[in-house]
Each structure stands twice: as C-alpha cells, then as structure tokens.
C-alpha cells in the first residue's frame, strides 16, 4: 500500500480578479511507499509547500487527486495516521507546553492515560521536560520547533509530513532530529521531508523527488539519480607494465593505504581497464559503485532546467 499517492495533481492560484494565474503544482504524479523516508527537494517556489498543503487538504487541487493510505485526502479520518510539522511553526501560544501536546493528542482520540505517558515521553525525548509547564509564548524558536515536532508525533502516526523541519534548530538540535528520524525509519514509519538542507535529506532518505516550477523533474534513489555510473575498482598491487597500459585509458589511478584504486568514469573505460588487468593477471579485490552527492544531483537538475 502507498502512504502517499498523487495523480496528475495540479494547483493554480488565481489573483482576486482572476486575471493572473500562477501554477504552483503541475501534473504531479508521485508515490511514497509505506515505510519509506522520502525527500521532497526544490528551490524556493518549486511547489513543495503547496504539494504538502494539497496533501493536508488545506488547499483544493485545480485538477488531479491526492491520496493518503489509498484514501482521498478529503477524508479527515485518515489524519489519525498522519503527523504534520509546518515550515513556520505557529503554535497555540496560550497553552503551556504539556497542555498543548495533551490537547492535540486528545483531538487524535488518544485516551487520557496514554496521553499522559506519551506526552511525558516526548517532552523527555525532545529535551523539553523543564519547559513543560512554561507558556508556549515564552518558548524560543528552537524550542517551539521541538514542540511542533512533538505534536506531530504525539499520536504515534504512521506517516509524518515535515516541511523544513530543522530550519530553526541549532546543530545539536539537528543532530537530535536526525537521530529521531533514523529511529522512526527503523520502526517502519513513513516520512516525507521537504528540506533545503541536502546533507540532512541525503543521510536519511531512501528516495528523493526534485521539483522545479511545480513540476516533478526527477525521482528515485541516489544511485538511480547519479548522472554517470562511474565505478571504483580496488586492487592490491599494480605492476609497472599494467600501469603503463592503464595510462592509455581515461581511468584515474590512486594509491592509498596499501591498495590501488582505479576510477572508471563510464562503462567503456571500465571495459578497457578490466581488459588491461586481465592481461597482466591482476585480481580485482572489490568494486564500488560511485554515486554523486545529492547536492551534485540537485544542482545539475536545476541547472539543466534553467539552462545555465
């Protein structure tokens, strides 16, 4: 079963008089499977937040459809399985931290005893124990972000939608957040993260989608999205004659820690290198597929589109 599915989802905003139209999301078809940690990437104005708002039924699609756990997003009952953290966390600031979490848990139908235990556990997990009885209006930005994250998880949802979840966190907070995400991943929860911090997405996401101008440009795992399938062949020793032969190929050879690494940019180079190694009776100890960093993939996708 898919946790999130969109079919040709589009959203166009119109000005008050209807003269000016802005397409925020265009024909977006996407699927996030249960248990997957999925990154939604894109420059500002790419349509990430609009997509999330469509999934939450906060705005209506101009066309297409969106589903959560195979049920239409208009079915609010499916929200029992959903936790959401918005980009700018605006909490009901007249509550105290603990009471706010209790209120949200009650809305999700969590019974009183379970609420008490769960709220205490989350406050401890997010380092907010001491601020539990403090009014939310007195919270710092980072504390509010942590409390926002706590409210998203208070009813143990199966799906978490996080819009720029670490924007207000310090490095320590980001690290804590990453640990929590990895724990959620281990527990089989589905997570959709929209973020500008690519290293963060790279370290936790199974798959990513790159949006630009409301359109889905690329989707897949990092390996799938890597532009060229370059490989590294590791050998123990490389005779001088073999080395001379390798110069003729475009492979790059490096020595480090008692082993030789031969980097092949493409399939043709790899074929030539393997031929040389076979001729000189050199054994390949292991081979590693080389994937581009998410940053490289993101930038190449965006540059390709803008033509720069």
């Amino acid at each position: 079963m898919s946790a999130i599915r969109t079919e040709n989802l589009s959203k166009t905003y119109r000005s008050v008089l209807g003269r000016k139209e802005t397409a925020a999301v265009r024909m977006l078809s996407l699927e996030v499977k249960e248990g997957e940690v999925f990154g939604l990437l894109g420059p500002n104005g790419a349509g990430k937040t609009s997509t999330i708002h469509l999934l939450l039924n906060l705005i209506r699609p101009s066309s297409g459809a969106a589903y959560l756990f195979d049920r239409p997003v208009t079915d609010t009952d499916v929200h029992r399985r959903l936790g959401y953290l918005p980009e700018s966390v605006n909490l009901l600031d007249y509550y105290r931290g603990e009471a706010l979490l209790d209120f949200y848990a009650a809305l999700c139908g969590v019974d009183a005893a379970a609420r008490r235990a769960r709220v205490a556990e989350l406050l401890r997990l997010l380092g907010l124990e001491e601020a539990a009885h403090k009014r939310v209006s007195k919270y710092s930005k980072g504390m509010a972000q942590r409390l926002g994250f706590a409210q998203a998880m208070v009813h143990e949802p199966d799906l978490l939608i996080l819009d720029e979840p670490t924007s207000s966190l310090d490095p320590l907070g980001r690290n804590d957040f990453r640990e929590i995400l990895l724990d959620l991943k281990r527990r089989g929860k589905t997570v959709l993260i929209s973020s500008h911090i690519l290293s963060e997405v790279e370290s936790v996401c199974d798959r990513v989608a790159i949006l630009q101008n409301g359109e889905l440009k690329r989707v897949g795992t990092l390996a799938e999205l890597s532009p060229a399938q370059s490989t590294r062949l590791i050998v123990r020793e490389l005779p001088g004659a073999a080395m001379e032969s390798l110069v003729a190929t475009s492979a790059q050879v490096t020595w480090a820690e008692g082993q030789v690494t031969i980097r092949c940019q493409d399939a043709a180079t790899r074929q030539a290198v393997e031929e040389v190694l076979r001729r000189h009776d050199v054994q390949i100890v292991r081979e590693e597929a080389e994937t581009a960093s998410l940053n490289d993939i993101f930038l190449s996708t965006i540059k390709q589109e803008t033509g720069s």
Partner: protein
Amino acid sequence: MRIVVLIAMDGIRALIHQRLLVALMLASLAGTVAFSVFLSSAREHVTQSFSEERRATEPTQGDRHLSEAEQRKFREQMEGMSSFVQAGFYKAASLGGSLVALFIFGTAVTSEIRRGTIRLTLSKPVSRTQFLLGKYMGGVAVMIAYAFFASLAVVFFALSQSVELNPAIRWAPWLMFCEQLMLGSLALLLSLFMHPILAAMLAFFAGNGFYSPPNPLYYILPSYSDFGVFFDVLQGNLVDWKDVVFLTLYAFDFVAIMLLLALWRFRTKELL
C-alpha cells in the same frame, strides 16, 4: 461531538487569553455600571429637587406628610427616572455585548487562519465542520458568561438602588443574548469573505431597521430592532412571553442559516 467540545474548550481558552477581549468585556460591564450610577444620581437629584421645591413653596409646613397628589406626582417622577435608569442600563449593556459578540465571532476563525495555527489543528482528524462549530460553540459559551454577568449586574444594581425591576427588563438579558448570537453568526459568516473589522461593521449595521415591509431588504436583513426592549422599559410595557418565544425561534433560525452558509464557505476556503 467530542471533537466539537474540545475545539469549543480551546476556543474559550483562546478568548480568555485575548487581553483586548477581556478588557472590552470588563470595560463594557464597568461602563454599564458607571452609566447607571450616573443615571441613579440623576434620580436622586430629582428627589432632592422635589423636596427643595416643596420647601420653597411651603416653607412653614415643616415635615408634614405629603398630600395624595404630591405623593402621586413624586411616585410618577420616581418611576419615570427608575425606568430611565434601567433602560439606560440595558442599552449600555446591549451595546457592550454587541461589541463583544462582534469581536468574538468575527475573529474566531480568521485569527486562526491569520496566525497559521489552523493548519496544525486541521492536520489532526478534525473536519472543517467540527472546527467551525467548535469555535462557534466556544464563542457562545463566552457570550453566555457575559450575559450572566450582565444580568447579575442588573439585579445587583436594582438591589443596591432599591429599584423595583421593570417588567420589560426581565426578558432583556435573554433577548440581548439572542440578538448577540445573530450578530455573531453574521459576523462569522462575513469574516470568511472579508477583513474581520469590515465584517463586524457590516454585521452591526446590517439590521433592517431602516426598511419597511414592501422593501425586499426588510425580509432579507436581520431584525435586530425587534430584540430591543429599550422603549418597553422606558414606557413600563410588559413584554409578552409569546413575543419572546417567537423572537427566540427567529434568532435560532437566523443563526442556523448563517452557520450553514459559513460552513459552505469555510469548507471550500483555501487555508494558505
């Protein structure tokens, strides 16, 4: 229903923490009492003038008992002043309550949209219908509290001034409450289309008092004026309980229609 109650309780909590609203409610109650005290002192002034007038015209009569004609004249003047004081009290309380109602209902949903807090609430299993009804119920609960305190103030004022309550004013708190619910529901509906201040102003001035029966606006616009008992109190008229029942049904019917329209609008509103 559980969700509606939770949202209503949250609504009450939000309203209690709105300093401007609390200040408005307290100022409204204080203003009502102050206005009545002013009128009460005017009543005393009349009594005093009457005594001085009597002493001036009959300086040798000392403390003799008033004649029957004098007593009647004095009683009429006293009753007139008492009715005036109560009518004034009612008018001040009614105006204050209307402002409170417009503030509460005009901002109940829009303030959540403006601050973005609605996104978190609606990301929980809360439908828009439950959210809107909950917010309305929360507002109603606060208005009940306000009407209760306003009524208490009436009774306290009457007891402290040894004034007999005018028969018309006995229904005043209820009619006032009904009128405020009507005002509030219209302000809530309009606030989903426009700025809350504009919505409140439109709701306040949308009464059909300026139109008479052949004009279609008379039938479309709410009849706030029918809920006013100012002149009944002033003239000492009795307000018939059948009129009260009729007005109550009219108010509830109006509120139901406004809420249905607000729900229709809110369900399709983009919560950006």
